[in-house]
């Protein structure tokens, strides 16, 4: 089966000039990555590892020096190709506070992708917005609010909803839960899993938190200093890491020896909870 979305041999070098000194940073070095249909792939790395740059190259907001992005086996041309890909591949930004236009009401922000691509009339747009809001667990009232009137978790749900308005096949999520509180993070992760199954999404999930990656993804890529140092089935990579950097990352997870919380199994009585 051809992967639905892949990067092949991608390179990107940044040139920095500071005080006359010119330094070159090889942000992404010969990275290849595949995303199969209906799969969640994790991309792990620390800050500066090049994971965000790679993902932005894959969506076409950052340019690659060399290498190729392929969608359904066909190479995506720089610029033009990505414009054509907008409806198929979507991106959710890291910071829930900056990714929404501060002056636009939520309903308008959600309807915008439909307007841009001339999909659906006014009445149907409104319907679709409401349907998407309820899909991500938000009340339809939210449509009339401005971003600053929402909490961080709500904003991240809106971001997600906006990316899904065009019914993409591939979703790239860049650290979308790292700014959220633990209980809200769990809500968003559960939502992501539900949506992925319901909409048959293929997902690239980028995070520095190995616990989140472990929970969500079937396969994982580990990036370090611009290179992929390890990849494979999540279970295998995390239980028997072969690269020393992966080992170091795993070792650094706080509370790693810590057993499964007693509560996790005792869900029988009150599963589902109350509103």
């Amino acid at each position, binding site marked *: 089966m051809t992967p639905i979305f892949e990067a092949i041999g991608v390179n990107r070098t940044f040139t920095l000039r500071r005080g006359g000194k010119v330094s070159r940073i090889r942000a992404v070095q010969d990275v290849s990555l595949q995303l199969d249909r209906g799969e969640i792939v994790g991309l792990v790395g*620390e*800050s500066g590892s090049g994971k965000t740059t790679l993902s932005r190259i894959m969506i076409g907001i950052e340019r690659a020096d060399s290498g190729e992005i392929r969608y359904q086996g066909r190479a995506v041309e720089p610029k033009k190709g990505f414009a054509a890909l907008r409806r198929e591949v979507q991106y959710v930004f890291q910071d829930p506070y900056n990714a929404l236009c501060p002056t636009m009401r939520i309903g308008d922000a959600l309807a915008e992708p439909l307007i841009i691509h001339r999909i659906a009339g006014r009445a149907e747009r409104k319907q679709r917005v409401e349907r998407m809001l309820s899909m991500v667990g938000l009340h339809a009232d939210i449509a009339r609010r401005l971003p600053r009137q929402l*909490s*961080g*978790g*709500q904003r991240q749900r809106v971001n997600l909803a906006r990316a899904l308005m065009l019914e993409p096949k591939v979703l790239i999520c860049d650290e979308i839960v790292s700014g959220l*509180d*633990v*209980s*809200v*993070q*769990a*809500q968003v*992760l*559960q939502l992501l*899993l539900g949506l992925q199954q319901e909409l048959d999404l293929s997902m690239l999930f980028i995070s*520095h*938190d*190995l*616990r*989140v990656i*472990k*929970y*969500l993804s079937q396969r994982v890529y580990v990036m370090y200093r611009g290179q992929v140092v390890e990849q494979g089935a999540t*279970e295998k990579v*995390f239980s028997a890491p072969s690269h020393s950097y992966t080992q*170091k*990352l*795993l*070792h*650094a*997870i*706080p*509370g*790693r020896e*810590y*057993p*499964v*919380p*007693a*509560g*996790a*199994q*005792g*869900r029988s*009585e*009150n*599963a589902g*909870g*109350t*509103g």
Partner: protein
Amino acid sequence: MSDSPKPVLEVENLSVRFPSQRGEVAVVDGLSFQLRAGESLVIAGESGSGKSMACRTLLGITPDSSRVDADRLDWKGQGLLALDRAGWNALRGAEIAMIFQDPAAALNPLITVETLISDAIRQHRGGTRAEVRARTIEALSRAGFPEPEFRMKAFPGELSGGLRQRVAIALALSCEPSLIIADEATTNLDVSIQAQIVELLRFLQADLGLALIFVTHDLGLAREIGGDLMVMYAGQAVEYGRVPEVLEDPCHPYTRGLLRSAPTMASDRNTPLQPIPGTAPRPGEAAGGAPFRARCPVAMERLCERENPGWTRVSDTHRVACHRFAAEGRGGVQ
């Protein structure tokens, strides 16, 4: 770790209130704890739980519009509430130091690392030029700042996030305080750096006999720090005990909810996370009654609405504030 020495920090019924349109609203509500030299206290909670504000009272840096009350807020037997500006200045840095979440914002970008730290030392400890310089180097090397003699001329902007946090720790250590408060001090750092910084804090605590207050939202980190753990929700402490006790035998529905929400290396999709439904209450919304009642799966209909639960003893060192637990014990909160 023994019970014999007198606590350095004694807090009883501490609250911080802000005026609002609906009258006064408590952001910290009736907090009590003690801390001995060489011990650590982890305060865990999510944003808006009041954990940072509680720490700020210990440094006298709460916002002007706030009102701080306590039956007791004593540092080494001295009442902090009665301190004037000069009193606070003598205490801050010298006795109690704080490490903030964002090292980039907490360090002045226009002052070199050396100047920053030596100024603090000069102000609190004094000494000749050579002495101050020696102390500066010592503080930096204790904080794991590499080659301080050469690199301390750097500006904060020239350092990586991890190094900047080490500078912030060195600054906190520079005047040999007895209590360090780390407010989400490792939250913005990469995991491997975070592990190093936590390691460092633990080492310093043991080596220098410091008292440590570590504020975090990550219960995994609480495990690494050890000592006592206080779980806060909506400005109130809901569970208090030794770290392993609380994490292995969580008795409050909120603590249990937090643990079930957080993915660990042992969890995967087959054992789904169980998010706490709903959102955290706004300040003041949870007043009167059990603070967690609106999101609690085992809330008791009338009791939790009306009455704030007092502490129920779980063991000598472990207590929980929950009506359900008080009535039915562990079985009730399962």
